[in-house]
């Protein structure tokens, strides 16, 4: 290599290639994403955070919760269940139709005691043939799409998270480490604000052998005045304050909890379907209302 221009050219070409692929292309592909419709309910998703929850996102970032908690759910596959609701008027034709697609379930029990799961297939495309065959002879079937994987078995979400889930987040913190559980859906899993406050103040008060650090600096310990504050934490055992004192969450603590309760990414989307859809979100404004 004689001339230095070769060095710079090499560096330029190498770096601009990865720059184009990992900066430019994602920006073109995803950078302008907008609200999408959920499937099949057609609700707008996601909804931007407002008020306390939006402020709480800043608290979450500033305290570096991301170094221990991820916010992304993985999925290894889907389980597609075909549930027969109605075998139609002529059950034998229905059975014959089912048998044609899936000979294994050619048993008379298949169409008794409905509704019941009659087949489990690998993907949605495979269920289509069955659905078509049964509806053609007047039967009624439904297909349940249930994502699977270790994150989902741990109860961290109903489906994998996708780019759409994050479009209103800034700073996006998907995280790379799980010293603690994934928090992508913590708002639907642990929706009680008092639990969250107690947990932040003294993790061991809600989970005996927790190793999460406690965030006592987000709370204020003060002498109980004429009347005890309604906001004071209800603590027992070791973590309870001395008699005559109470523990009151600061604004930061309330913002953070509002944010945690807003974390929920399980709306069924086209690119990540879940049926039947999860129950609607509980109100996350209980803390805000205080």
């Amino acid at each position, binding site marked *: 290599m004689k001339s230095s221009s070769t060095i710079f050219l090499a560096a330029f070409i190498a770096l601009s290639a990865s720059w184009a692929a990992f*900066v430019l292309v994602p920006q073109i592909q995803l950078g302008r994403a907008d609200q999408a419709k959920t499937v099949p309910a057609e609700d707008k998703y996601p909804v931007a955070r407002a008020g306390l929850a939006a402020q709480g996102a800043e608290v979450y970032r500033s305290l570096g919760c991301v170094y221990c908690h991820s916010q992304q759910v993985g999925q290894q596959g889907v389980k597609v269940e075909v549930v027969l609701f109605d075998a139609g008027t002529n059950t034998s034709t229905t059975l014959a139709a089912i048998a044609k697609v899936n000979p294994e379930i050619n048993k008379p029990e298949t169409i008794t005691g409905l509704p019941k799961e009659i087949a489990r297939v690998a993907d949605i495309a495979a269920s289509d043939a069955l659905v078509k065959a049964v509806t053609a002879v007047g039967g009624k079937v439904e297909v349940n799409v249930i994502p699977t994987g270790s994150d989902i078995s741990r109860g961290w979400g109903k489906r994998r998270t996708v780019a759409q889930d994050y479009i209103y987040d800034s700073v996006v913190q*998907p995280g790379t480490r*799980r010293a*603690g559980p994934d928090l992508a859906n913590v708002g639907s899993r642990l929706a009680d604000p008092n639990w969250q406050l107690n947990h932040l103040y003294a993790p061991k008060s809600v989970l005996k052998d927790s190793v999460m650090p406690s965030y006592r600096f987000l709370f204020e310990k003060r002498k109980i005045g004429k009347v005890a504050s309604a906001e004071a934490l209800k603590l027992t055992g070791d973590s309870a304050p001395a008699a005559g004192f109470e523990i009151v969450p600061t604004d930061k603590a309330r913002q953070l909890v509002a944010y945690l309760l807003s974390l929920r990414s399980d709306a069924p989307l086209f690119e990540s379907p879940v049926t039947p859809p999860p129950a609607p979100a509980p109100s996350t404004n209980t803390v805000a209302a205080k």
Partner: protein
Amino acid sequence: MTATSTPSPKQIDSSCRLPLFTLFSGAAVWLVMSCVFGIAASMTFHKPDIFAECTVGTYGRAYPAWSHLLVYGFAIPSGLGVGLWLLARLGRVEVAKPFVISIGAKLWHAGVLVGLVGIMNGQTSGYEWFELPRYAAVILLLAFMLMAIWAFVTYSRRNEESLYPSQWFTLASLFWFPWIFSTTILLLQFFPVRGVVQSSVAWWFAGNLLNVWLTLSGLAATFYLLPKLTNRPLQSHYLALFVFWTVLIFGTWTGIPMHSPLPAWMSTLSSAAAVMMIVPMLALASVVFLTTIGAKTACGGGLLCFSKFGVLSFNLATLAAAIAACPAIARITDFTWFNHGHTTLRLYGFFAMTMFAAIYYILPKVSGVEICPRRIKGHFWVAMPGALLLAVPMIIGGIKQGLKLADMSAPFLDSTKVAMLGFRIGTLGEVLIAIGALIFLANVLLSIISHYRVIAKSAIADATAKQPTEVRL
């Protein structure tokens, strides 16, 4: 140019003095500070409530402070200092505008301090390896440009036309950093992109910083030092060139983790690149093997030990990253301490150790004062086990953690608990590294102080020697 205008090595070394003193002394101070935060962060795993009342020590701030100081405080300034000296020495030219470069270095250190204060106040950007708030990032970018421009001018004024591999590596590193850093500042902090594009930019940056920048800057030193220390020629320039190309071509694609909400093609590309990093790793291993085999120099805890251990760590870290990029293994190791383990091996085992070797090699030439070999050896024998004790238990703990995470019958907390032992040993490693860092700081500061003391002494001697004659006149 004519031979007469070529400055002597002594002149070149003394032209480097001001910038190098500033860069290295600051780097040593930040390294010690970073260890303090590293130890504080790891205390959380011994006693989770230790910083319950203290925002400065809380894990989510101590940890980014550790990585910020290690990368921006220690690694980049020491890499820049070594690179600057290499460009001057190999080009047989005095450093251009050393005073301006030393101002750049001071500005850089000031930016690191501002960043640290920002992180402590909760103004972290929230992206791993790019923790500094934007006002600090802008200072660092300006400071880097100031230094890089004059480093480049130094290079272009060179008297020696033919290029040595270390120059390619250094030049590419001078070019790489401003690009990735300015892209990231613009797209994450000034005109933030939306949604997961942010993660994409941040991971691209981290991959390029850790796998390309550190590699370029570290190997520039390795390729210079190995032949010098073993008194044998580099075997061979072509292989070194091959390492250069493959690091650029593959390294720049690393960074996107296997599990992420980004489109799958991105993590697939990135993982393939991490696996391909085995190619430069093997080439590097052969360069080192061919260059040092049959060398008479005993390593004995001296500079050669630092440098060889650096290469070994680079290879281990690259191998671990490549293994963890295979989908079946990533399913276990992603989200665990595994990746953190090999990254620390890269930072402490490879980069820091290589820089120690280079700085111990360069500093005596620049200051004119030898460093006591026993203090260098002492440093090696605490830093080397320290790096291993920090990284290896974390890698093993990560695997155990991953197996527990994948085991649905095990409660979640088990996965955190099995990694605890790794952490407890890791704290010991961090303490050893901290002791090493203190020795390093002492070595650097003593060199600088003795340099000025020698100057002061000779000035006094001059003055007293002259006086009698003056009096007589």
